[in-house]
């Protein structure tokens, strides 16, 4: 059987000329790094689960993508991360929502899948579970970037003050 991998960094209104050259290059570099992280696992015979997690963790650390570091802000000015992972062999699955202090949300989802009797944990309990299972913690400041703060300010300044309903920001 031959291996295969696909990744994404989000869809939206990016058109040619919409992204700066720097953002275009940074996006492609981030995708290339994540693709290589996952492909390296598969080339050496590693599992699909490990490959998917490795690729997503690279993107979670890349501030150009809306996950982990570089996530968008809530209306209250906080960052809350969600993640899920699933194995096709036995339909095992793990998911977390509303994480605020866990560096790699996908690693927390994997721990829920493999080290708890549950599928889905949310909020402070999900962070507490992650930290109790040695999943790396991170200060909320780790996730914040000036660009995302600017985008939040822009949205909140709009008269209707609605969330990013037209998915302009990742």
């Amino acid at each position, binding site marked *: 059987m031959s291996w295969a991998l696909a990744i994404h960094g989000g869809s*939206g209104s990016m058109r040619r000329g919409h992204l700066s050259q720097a953002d275009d290059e940074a*996006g492609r570099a981030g995708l290339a790094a994540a693709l290589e992280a996952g492909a390296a696992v598969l080339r050496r015979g590693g599992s699909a689960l490990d490959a998917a*997690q490795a690729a997503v963790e690279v993107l979670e650390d890349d501030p150009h993508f809306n996950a982990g570091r570089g996530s968008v802000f809530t209306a209250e000015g906080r960052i809350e991360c969600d993640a*899920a992972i*699933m194995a096709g062999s036995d339909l095992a699955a793990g998911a977390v929502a509303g994480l605020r202090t866990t560096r790699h949300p996908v690693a927390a989802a994997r721990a829920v899948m493999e080290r708890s009797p549950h599928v889905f944990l949310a909020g402070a309990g999900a962070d507490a579970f992650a930290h109790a299972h040695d999943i790396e913690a991170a200060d909320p400041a780790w996730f914040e970037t000036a660009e995302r703060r600017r985008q939040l300010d822009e*949205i909140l300044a709009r008269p209707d003050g609605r969330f990013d309903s037209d998915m302009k920001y990742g």
Partner: protein
Amino acid sequence: TVGAVARDMAGRMAAATSTGGLTGKKWGRVGDSPLIGAGTYADDRAAAVSCTGAGEYFIRLGIAHELCARVRLAGDLPSAAGEAMIGELGTMGGKGGLIHVGRDGPGGWAFNTPGMYRARAAADAAPEIAIYGDE
């Protein structure tokens, strides 16, 4: 939102999705990414799927699971099932995209937005990276 779908040398598949959600979200709003069957699903009998976009529509359509069900029960190729699901998404007024990998062949994607950050690699294919819809 970011995601990955993989098939390993043993033929096992996996899907993973991670997101910060929507800018300015309120009241603890959660989208499709962490909902198994909506934004993330994997079934070795069919495919592995990770989604991105207007999460509320992906939740209502159960898109990741539905794509796998079409492959498993109707014999669709993942690519055809992916296009059909994005078509249904658009019909409901939703926007977004998905990536998929099946029991053989390279991974693929489908989306109805102007662009999508996407990439793929396979044992027998050169890596591809793209952002704009016309790439």
